[in-house]
């Protein structure tokens, strides 16, 4: 048995060297092929954005002209002014509303999720694992199940003027639930906290600090990169939120950008595409800027929650 295998192995070994060399050429060919494929793919993916920019700078006539012009003959920069500064669609106001909403939720989620995740990540108590499974289970829950009773709850709170706040036609009902954490972000931060050495608690306790002090003075400063990811994910999500404001906000001046943009289409019967594209592009730019500035945090956040999930 041993004799047979050794005689068979010898020619295989010389073949291996040749095949490794062969493989190097194969790898180079594959790398070139992949690069070409990626360039073609990227052009297809980016084309709609390019077409959006192009249309936004055309006249109403040129936008629907055949054959289409790829680059506007005479760029109509005033399209942006016409689209955004029309008193019927106060985009600066929409922008302010969107920022108020998404930044409030962002701060609420950063504080609450960092606080809650600390408990789940680093403190021991009976029943903790079961409770955390419950956190994960709520991730699978379709939001529609809680949507209607929440809406009724907030209309009732509005009826009794609870805490002296407006609970309808206001962003309050869209912000308040986030003061109590969001499962997805709690999960993300917990994954990060668990990677920190346990010695911090030991040392802190010896120095006479309590767990709140340890969280506030040691863990929180150490987790700034993860908090960055939370901030970006939260901001990006609520910047474009549509369903929430559609349910609770019913006054044009209180609309966020998403509702303002959608409503912008209706009065023109969906035909004034050059102005629509100008407005859309303006709405798209802020998240793109945020993405480029904080890409690292963002990708990290998605990857941590996606892969380790």
């Amino acid at each position: 048995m041993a004799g047979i295998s050794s005689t068979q192995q010898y020619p295989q070994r010389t073949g291996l060297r040749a095949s490794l060399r062969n493989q190097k050429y194969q790898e180079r060919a594959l790398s070139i092929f992949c690069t070409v494929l990626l360039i073609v793919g990227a052009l297809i993916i980016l084309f709609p954005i390019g077409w959006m920019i192009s249309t936004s700078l055309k006249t109403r006539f040129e936008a629907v002209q055949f054959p289409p012009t790829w680059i506007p003959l005479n760029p109509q920069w005033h399209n942006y002014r016409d689209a955004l500064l029309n008193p019927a669609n106060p985009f600066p106001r929409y922008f302010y509303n969107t920022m108020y909403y998404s930044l409030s939720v962002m701060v609420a989620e950063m504080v609450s999720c960092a606080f809650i995740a600390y408990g789940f990540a680093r403190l021991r108590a009976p029943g903790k694992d079961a409770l955390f499974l419950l956190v994960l289970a709520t991730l699978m829950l379709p939001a529609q199940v809680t949507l209607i009773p929440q809406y009724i709850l907030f209309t009732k709170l509005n009826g009794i003027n609870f805490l002296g706040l407006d609970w309808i036609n206001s962003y309050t009902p869209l912000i308040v639930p986030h003061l109590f954490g969001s499962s997805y972000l709690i999960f993300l931060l917990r994954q990060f906290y668990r990677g920190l050495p346990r010695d911090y608690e030991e040392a802190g306790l010896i120095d006479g600090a309590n767990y709140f002090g340890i969280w506030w003075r040691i863990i929180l400063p150490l987790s700034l990169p993860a908090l960055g990811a939370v901030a970006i994910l939260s901001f990006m999500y609520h910047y474009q939120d549509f369903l929430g404001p559609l349910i609770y906000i019913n006054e044009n001046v209180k609309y966020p950008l998403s509702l303002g943009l959608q409503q912008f289409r209706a009065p023109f019967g969906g035909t004034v595409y050059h102005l629509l594209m100008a407005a859309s592009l303006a709405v798209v730019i802020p998240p793109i800027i945020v993405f480029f500035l904080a890409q690292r945090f963002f990708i990290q956040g998605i990857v941590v929650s996606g892969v380790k999930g």
Partner: protein
Amino acid sequence: MAVRILPQGTAARREMAWFWFFVGPWVFGFFVFTLGPILASAYLSFTRYNGLRGNPRWIGFDNYTNLMDNPIFWKSLQVSAYYTVLSVPLGIFFSLMLALTLNQRVPFLGVFRTLFYLPSIMPAVAATLLFVWLLNPQFGILNYFIRTLIGPEGLIPLGVNGPNWLQDQRWVIPSFTLISLWGFGGGMLIYLSALQGVPTHLYEAATIDGAGYIKRFWHVTLPMISPVILFTTITGVIGSFQVFTQAWVINGGTGAPNYQSMFYVLYLFVNAFRRNRMGVAAAQAWVLFLVVLVLTVFFLWASRRFVYYESESGGRF
């Protein structure tokens, strides 16, 4: 290992108290904004209630039996199922292919990654309006391409004219799928990091055993990233059953043409917030909940044979 200053019992009890202090806000939020509403929603689904004035009136299973007799309800379920079957596998396929391509030795990895990810950060309303324009039957650029390439007087005169996309009964769901596929770079990030987590020694061993690219993908890559594929399948299915924004922006709740784009949650929303039929909508929400639950359990069950977990304990929680 741990240095304990206080006696075991006291320290443990103190730690437990602090645990509840930290997770307390979540527990409160869970009761008020999740568990309470779930139960309230279950109760409402057995009542007639307009959500404005008066109290919910108990009507037993009427909302459910009426839904069973409602053709639009079945249509909405069918539309969402069709969209899910079309968009989830295609999305996973393209994301995975893209991740595999990026995982080869290609230059400018970061640039490509950013470019392909760009559509995913576009606000849904803006992206949808953009596609309404691109897919416009008369003036849209996509039909212009089709006409010039394979139209009756095109470069290759096959006589093919572009469909009416979002206005065509047969093409409306494929059009929605096209919109969702534009964001396929979103899944790529997750697959890419999963691929980078596959130990290289496995590939080396497979190569020495004479495995080519396809065999290495089939016997090393795919098993190693199978948990991630399962995760993205489940979240993808749940997400595609909840499509709302795109549908609302495109048809404003009508489900046009001929209810072929009456997505499940769209119909739910119309019943709840446009017709004030809270009880019916609550029943719809519960049916959705059960559908999602059954699908999730089914995927977890069906995947046992296909998904490979490196460590049995998982070490996840």
